[in-house]
């Protein structure tokens, strides 16, 4: 158990170092950082001075060590376009992204489970067919197209919901939340649904497949034979056993939700990290790109590690073998 956890932790650190190398190479070799920072009329001597102050003349390995050291303290340098520390920019926008991602995940979980359970229990009803069609559309329609469609329907035509921004926010410490104001909640509805739709489809398909699987097992047949009520069998036994893989998948997918927020945030001009990243890609603002990559990787790796460890606690069979919880 301890050996397994340690091995996974070492692997996670290895991944982070690999990402660090990519991130550092982007920063150091993709274009000259000095050129990005100064104007056209800066003299050679001034450029050399900036080069010196950034430590770009040191050996590459020293620079890399310094980069990782700074990254570990969440120092990612200064943005080329905003002239502000990247960390401040990211931290300022993180609450928006996290609130969006969490609400989208909760929406996806609840509606996905409900739709999945219904279409497993009433396989031939018309509503189940509707759900199947919705899930096909959810997989086939690109996220941004769903967003555009919703804006046209609910903002342009009906005028019910705002089409951009996150409404009024309330500051709790450094965290700016939109969950406590009416306009904030209204602004959240469409982005959260757009972002959650793909996960909802995924969860619905998974719940349906798992439920159908579980309902065929012997212990369900035995429960029926014992004369338990249908409700107790379906929800007390079948659903409960379905939920373990569902929660695992939903947990592992949380990182993807944050990454996919890039698209949703652009469609709805949601002031989060994803929008910052897209603007950074357009303006070749390497420090922001590198920092975003490191942040998202850290979230991914942490989630994977936690899920792996939780898995071994829940399922002792996995302890002896190297598991991959994909």
């Amino acid at each position, binding site marked *: 158990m301890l050996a397994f956890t340690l091995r996974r932790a070492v692997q996670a650190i290895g991944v982070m170092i690999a990402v660090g190398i990519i991130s550092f190479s982007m920063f150091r070799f993709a274009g000259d950082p000095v050129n990005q920072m100064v104007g056209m009329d800066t003299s050679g001597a001034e450029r050399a001075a900036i080069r010196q102050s950034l430590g770009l003349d040191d050996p590459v390995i020293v620079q890399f060590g310094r980069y990782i050291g700074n990254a570990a303290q969440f120092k990612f340098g200064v943005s080329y376009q905003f002239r502000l520390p990247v960390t401040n920019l990211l931290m300022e926008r993180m609450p928006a992204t996290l609130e969006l991602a969490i609400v989208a995940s909760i929406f996806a979980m609840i509606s996905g489970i409900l739709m999945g359970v219904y279409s497993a229990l009433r396989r031939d009803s018309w509503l189940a067919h509707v759900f199947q069609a919705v899930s096909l559309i959810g997989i086939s329609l690109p996220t941004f197209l769903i967003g555009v469609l919703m804006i046209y329907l609910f903002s342009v035509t009906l005028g019910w919901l705002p089409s951009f921004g996150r409404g009024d926010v309330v500051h709790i410490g450094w965290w700016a939340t939109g969950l406590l104001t009416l306009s904030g909640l209204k602004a959240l509805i469409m982005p959260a649904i757009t972002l959650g739709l793909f996960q909802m489809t995924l969860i619905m398909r998974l719940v349906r497949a798992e439920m159908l699987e579980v309902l065929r097992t012997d212990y369900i047949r035995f429960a029926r034979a014992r004369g338990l009520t249908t409700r107790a069998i379906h929800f007390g036994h079948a659903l409960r056993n379905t939920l373990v893989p569902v929660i695992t998948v939903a947990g592992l997918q949380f990182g993807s939700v944050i990454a996919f927020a890039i698209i949703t945030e652009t469609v709805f001009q949601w002031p989060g990290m994803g929008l910052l990243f897209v603007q950074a890609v357009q303006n070749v603002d*390497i420090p922001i790109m590198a920092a975003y990559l490191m942040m998202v990787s850290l979230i991914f790796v942490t989630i994977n590690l936690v899920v792996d460890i939780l898995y071994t606690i829940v399922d002792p069979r996995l302890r002896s073998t190297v598991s991959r919880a994909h």
Partner: protein
Amino acid sequence: MSEAVVPHPTEKRPAAAPGWFRRALDSDLFYSFRRSKITMIAAGVTLLFFLVAIFASVLSVQNPFDPAQLQLMNSRISPLWTADGQSPFLLGTDEQGRDVLSAILYGLRISLLVGVLGVVLSGAIGILLGLTAGYFGGAVDGLIMRIADVQLSFPAILIALLINGIAKSVLGNKLDETSMLAVLVFAIGLSFWVQYARTVRGSVLVEKNKDYVAAAQLIGLPAPVIMLRHVLPNTTGPILVIATINLALAIITEATLSFLGSGMPETMPSLGTLIRIGNGYLFAGEWWIVAFPGFALAALILSINLLGDWLRDALNPKLR
């Protein structure tokens, strides 16, 4: 055990003109194709999209990539069947006087070109790495699969965006249309190779212990020949399924990148760029600029996905 050879029913049939065509019509795959109406429709729609993209220059009233052919006088005309419609602009025009239908046909060409080239590139990378990993095993295998594992845990769109940003920074921020197209193909190719590599590696691990591989090794064939000529043909089924589903994913990725403003420029728009352009006019009530490209993209992806789903089930012997 009797050694009597039972002839396959189809072998008795007199071979009609081109043998491979006859064989294709007799195959299980074609039979299952004929049985699924939805698949036939999806195949028809996909084929139609490819045809109109190829013959875009014949079917369009103007070349939307040529600024000389666009007239600002014709800007923002609504579709033909509405009150303000004007021929020859069947689906209306956009801000620059670009005919929406022509723009869709030419944009479709770009989207399909990037999608197909991206799938070919990712397939080539994935198959080569998968063959190498599976055939040689050991440290090479460990390294390649470790990279694959790490990359798989990141969404392809994030990787494509990063590659895009790096390419821009190395090649200069303002790329011309052709090099942007190449960057997109490259970004998609590098984002989607993992699935091929894993699948091919899995098949190779099964195949390489079979007698025919041992025989090939015994007569001294070099490893690349065995891998490409003997092992690879036995993995075509799964590769075909992945390629079909990945074509839809590649087209979505290209459209998303273009929509985010990191893809095809407005002077040579793909479907994603058209949706990006049209999105700006949605609030002015000019819905046709975004609606028709959006519909074309959705229909294209849906039909390719349906085709991919069918192919996966049809080639899966467990489901027969």
